[in-house]
């Protein structure tokens, strides 16, 4: 057998990010203090270069593999990666000012962000169970460290600890599930698993067990009920820039993970995972929306709101399998991808707004801190309004179309009652989003310090929020991108 040289070019974006992470780590250890400002530039440059490389290396031909088929680059990789880069790019801009003010802007921070980005990238290109695990661990470990990055702060340390312990438990679950699946199929390669025509009678149960653990692990990474307990504490405890990162890009990576494993790998065994996802999704939508109402901390509220949005993503994944109807499956999965993208962008805007209001010694993380924003800055009050309306799913903001697309798929699959429940819960959820708008517009501010955010934050945040309104008026472009990614990849 001739030894074939793997196609490194296809993995160029990942290689760039890995190299940049190494450079930053080295710099963190040896570079002089006055070079510090270059850390940010290196990180952003790496993200931009990776974006360009992704655009040029993937997409044509539609599906490419390398390293003997354990890496797979297709349109889903392309679309998901692009929005992951966008999220990280925005997260770095939004967070920089916050970090500088608190003396946290160090090379290690950027190194860790890039390492977690590398993990996310691997999740989008993996085609092999071990590789998935590798990507997941890389992403998670970097994130644990980021949460606890401000280590002298008790709340941060506690959050990091909780996240780490529970994450380790989830990793254990996933690893256990993977080993059971390996036991049942005798392979770790995703295409091979999906092509195992029929399992032996005894193996089927083993495989189902494995799947259950895998679904639990995926649900943990998403932060879905009942594996959601870490979400509120970690979102609350982590420094806001980290929360911002945590709430956006990893959700897209988790989507890629779930989609690759469940839909690509285990489509034939959908009767096992479909009801599991469904129950997790419905529980997330219900509990997320209800618990968010009781929150007084803005970050915790957004954490629970995120749980409910994750419920929608999982719901879309769950309803894709309808007795082999290819068109319905396509619709459901493209709606889910659309939702995941929209949610990531909305998360960026919402946490970005918190960062905008925050300054040294003032985290702007309580609901009361939003009061009277309209008097301080009518423009950003309007941005807040757009973001909250979009999160709530008010028509003609993009969040509405995301919900609509998923609910259409749910109805098409015949789960009318689930759709009704989801709508009712969204309606209840609208309360806490609108409360934020009400506080910003109709309440007197508790303090009168002006906003001091950097100009690039202001510009990007405005663009970010306006995009929610703009895509709400013209959702077609983004929707067809998601749909095309699905058609090209499935």
């Amino acid at each position, binding site marked *: 057998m001739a030894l074939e040289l793997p196609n490194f070019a296809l993995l160029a974006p990942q290689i760039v990010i890995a190299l940049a992470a190494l450079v930053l780590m080295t710099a963190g250890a040896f570079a002089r203090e006055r070079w510090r400002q270059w850390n940010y530039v290196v990180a952003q440059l790496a993200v931009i270069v990776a974006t360009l490389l992704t655009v040029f290396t993937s997409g044509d031909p539609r599906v490419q593999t390398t390293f003997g088929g354990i890496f797979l680059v297709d349109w889903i990789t392309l679309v998901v990666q692009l929005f992951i880069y966008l999220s990280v790019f925005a997260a770095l801009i939004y967070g920089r000012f916050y970090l500088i003010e608190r003396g946290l802007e160090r090379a290690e921070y950027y190194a860790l962000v890039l390492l977690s980005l590398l993990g996310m990238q691997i999740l989008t290109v993996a085609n092999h169970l071990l590789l998935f695990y590798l990507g997941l661990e890389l992403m998670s470990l970097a994130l644990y460290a980021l949460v606890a990055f401000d280590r002298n702060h008790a709340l941060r340390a506690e959050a990091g600890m909780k996240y780490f312990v*529970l994450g380790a438990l989830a990793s254990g679950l996933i690893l256990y599930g993977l080993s059971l699946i390996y036991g049942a199929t005798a392979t770790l390669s995703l295409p091979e698993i999906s092509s195992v025509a029929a399992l032996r009678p005894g193996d089927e149960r083993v495989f189902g*067990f494995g799947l259950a653990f895998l679904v639990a692990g995926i649900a943990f990474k998403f932060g879905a009920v*009942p594996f959601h*307990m870490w979400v509120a504490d970690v979102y609350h405890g982590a420094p806001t820039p980290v929360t911002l990162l945590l709430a956006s890009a990893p959700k897209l990576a988790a989507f890629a993970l779930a989609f690759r494993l469940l839909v690509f790998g285990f489509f034939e065994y959908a009767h096992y995972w479909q009801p599991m996802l469904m129950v997790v999704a419905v529980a997330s939508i219900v509990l997320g929306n209800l618990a968010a109402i009781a929150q007084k901390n803005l970050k915790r509220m957004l954490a629970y709101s995120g749980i409910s949005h994750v419920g929608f993503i999982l719901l879309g994944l769950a309803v894709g399998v309808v007795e082999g109807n290819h068109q319905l499956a396509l619709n459901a999965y493209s709606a889910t991808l659309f939702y995941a993208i929209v949610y990531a962008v909305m998360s960026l805007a919402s946490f970005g707004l918190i960062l905008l209001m925050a300054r040294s010694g003032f985290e702007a993380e309580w609901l009361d801190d939003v009061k009277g924003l309209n008097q301080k800055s009518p423009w950003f009050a309007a941005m807040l309004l757009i973001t909250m309306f979009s999160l709530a799913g008010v028509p003609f903001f993009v969040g509405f179309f995301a919900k609509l697309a998923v609910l259409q798929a749910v109805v098409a699959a015949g789960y009318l009652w689930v759709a009704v429940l989801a709508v009712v819960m969204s309606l209840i959820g609208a*309360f806490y989003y609108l409360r934020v708008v009400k506080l910003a517009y109709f309440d007197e501010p508790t303090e009168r310090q002006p906003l001091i955010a950097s100009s690039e934050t202001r510009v990007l945040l405005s663009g970010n929020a306006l995009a929610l309104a703009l895509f709400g008026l013209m959702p077609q472009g983004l929707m067809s991108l998601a749909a095309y990614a699905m058609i090209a990849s499935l």
Partner: protein
Amino acid sequence: MKLLYTVVPFAPLVGAIVAGLWGNRLGRTATHRITILGVLIAFLASVAIFFDVHNGNTFNGPLYTWGTSDGLTFEVGFLIDSLTVTMMLVVTFVSLMVHIYTIGYMADDPGYCRFFSYISLFTFSMLMLVMSNNFLQLFFGWEAVGLVSYLLIGFWYTRPTAIYANLKAFLVNRVGDFGFLLGIGLIAAYAGTLDYAETFAQAEKLATMNEAVTGWPLITAICIALFIGAMGKSAQVPLHVWLPDSMEGPTPISALIHAATMVTAGIFMVARMSPLFELSDTALSFVLVIGATTAFFMGILGIVQSDIKRVVAYSTLSQLGYMTVALGASAYSVAIFHLMTHAFFKALLFLSAGSVIIAMHHDQDMRNMGGLWKYLPVTWLTALIGALALIGTPFTSGFYSKDSILIAVAHAQIPGATYAYFCVMAGVFVTAFYTFRMIFLVFHGKERFGQAHAHHDHAAHGSDDHHHGLAPGEKPHESPKVVTVPLVLLAIPSLLIGAFTIDAMLFGGWFANVIFVDEARHGSIAALREEFHGALAMGLHGLTSLPFFIALAGVALAAFFYLVRPDLPDRIAARVRWLYTILVNHYYFDRFNEIVFAGGARRLGRWLWQIGDRTVIDGAMVNGSAQIVGEVAEAGAALQSGRLYHYAFSMILGIAVLLLFLYLV
């Protein structure tokens, strides 16, 4: 060409936006120049389109697709054909005249720029209405003109009567719109489209169907529902009550909106829907009877009015009734023909009345006028032309259209035609009487102006320019050029347009393929064609026909009462006081509505508020559910203990639940 079509409605819209947003900054002159330019462009483009359509180029297509839902397409589109272009010409021409006239009429008003913005906006809305090729846009235009009408009736918003009147117009129109929406809904439900052409293609199929819930014949239900919409907009009995009150608005808009264009939207709509209406005799009978009732009984009310604008307003009601009668008699083209001639001579009459009002310093009471002809020669002449056209004097435009209606009704076969024929014939007499009563009271007889008006309290009016009147000894003056020029320009078509266009519009196939008449069953238009031997012959024959003598009798009686024996009317009124009381109370329609509908609605509203809203919805549902949600939320938050082992336990529990599914499937 599509660009030109687009220019027609949007040029006035641009004018309206500029005048509305920046009018006060631009100043008055710039504002009226911009808006007049917009309407002028629309008019010139309409003329160009007219010649294009005349050469046989019609258009039907979408401009912009707004959305698609469940197979139903929502579009903005244009249908350009002979009917559309006729309406476009009428609307833009009258609007242009009114724009110019307004410069003079509103000269001293603080809301000058706002007014121009509104009337330009109205022109845009009305053009969108008539140019539409689908029901959705029709409804948009319908509501938009209603909105502008509301805004303009209440233009002097500090006057309680104006606010009352515009609210009334708004509410009464809601009743009509409810029917209209039902009609559109039925079409959307059963034809599955909102496009005119596609609906008409299915008309025969719709005619065989019954409405699923009630079992009514579908086409009749659709037509009557649509016509109820027309009744609201075109002020047919019993939804006419808002139109006389709408005279609270400034006179130019009374001419433009409440005489020439908007109120004819209902007539236009029914003519546009002729392929549907032709299939339902029941609906046509309904139209005929409503129209005839309006034509006669509203005309009578014109006799007892003393406010000059109200006379013209009731005359408008009556004339709208005539148009409706023509529709009911399946003579759609005649209705449109009368709509057009009426637009000119009624706008003329209103603007003349406005000119008189300017001269009288905003005193509108005819009892304070008299002998004005020598002070206002241009106004007098043009008003006289308008009056002659209105009563149908042979060779004027009003003659051709009204006489055609009379002949059409005489040949109508459907139930109610005899009643309608009596009403429109008697209406001729009534029209002649009240019209010349107005002419004689205002322009002839003894000069009664300049006397002290004891009942007017000037101090209470403040800046209000209503009911000032002339000071004792002051003489009225002819209005400025910007007022009289539009009068003259409108007087020309009022006199001539009928004779020149009757052949083409009614018989020459101008409306072929646009207005559909089932001549085998509804023969009035065919009979009309048979009797027609050219405009000149028709005019000469008119001099010897019955309606002419009836009208002459009306004029003679008016002359006798108001010139020869001015004391008689009061004595007659005193003699038949019961009749007079009914008439001055407008047949008690307003009182009835006030007590039954307004009062009933208030009582129902109060009941729903107390029981439905406060107890059930607020008490049980809103607060109740909110309380439950709140409690659940607290409980959910309490799950979040902060302890790591609780969290881990919850995950293990979750795994257990998921594993449970392995046994369930």
